[in-house]
């Protein structure tokens, strides 16, 4: 299992709420596309993404292949500027990604 999924997070606090936005580099193959030779491109998409803050999972996204390529997500949770949180993701090939974000 490789930690190869790239996640980019931007987080900013406003009035005690952390607004987090992220982009994940991922092909999000639905398994329905065919390549130039007519071969089906196998399924390969993110399945779950978590945000872990102060030991708790504050947010979890479950994805299907209907999420656009290079998934974008914006969510919010209670927190403070200067705090850190982790974002982790896993896909159908059991590849994972993890990134630490600092709240501005």
């Amino acid at each position, binding site marked *: *299992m490789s930690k190869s999924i790239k996640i980019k997070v931007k987080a900013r606090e406003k009035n005690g*709420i952390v607004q987090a*936005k992220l982009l994940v580099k991922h092909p*999000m193959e*639905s398994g*329905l596309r065919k390549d130039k030779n007519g071969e089906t491109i196998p399924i390969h998409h993110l*399945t*779950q993404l*978590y945000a*872990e*803050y102060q*030991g*708790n*999972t*504050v*947010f*979890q*996204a*479950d*994805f*299907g*292949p*209907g*999420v*656009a*390529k290079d*998934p*974008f*997500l*914006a*969510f*919010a*949770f*209670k*927190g403070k500027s200067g705090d850190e949180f982790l974002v*982790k993701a*896993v896909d*159908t090939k*059991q590849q*994972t990604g*993890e990134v630490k974000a600092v709240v501005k």
Partner: protein
Amino acid sequence: MKLTRRNFIVDLLKGSSFIALATSFPTMAFAKWNEKAFKAKQLKQALESKYGKQQIVDSGDILLKAPTIAENGAVVPIRVSTNIANTNNISLFVKDNPTPLIASLNFGETSIPEIQIRIRMAKTSEVIAIVEADGKLYQTKQLVKVTIGGCGG
């Protein structure tokens, strides 16, 4: 082939489409990835797999923001928010997609029930946002048109 520990794990990985990665992931506070719901090819199936036979009521307390005409079905920006108290899940469905369940977003006690996401739409379809709060289900819908472009398409 001799059943070594390595083979066993590889076989285990091949066998399931999702595994709880106990070591590097926190104890799941939320549900496992619902394979049946995500692979369902009809809206009715997807809803049943996710919610059982539970009734879903229309609600004006869910704000679904989606374009009237999507610029490109490959990337459609969607926003959902709700002021329904104790929301723990917002799920998005696209009625006419090959697999209607798009995403299921789970909120902890300290998170705000609002989400922005970019989805794929195969064709003109209803986009449905369903909120789960205190065990009850609420929904709102919007028709989003997906067109055939001229030279941009």
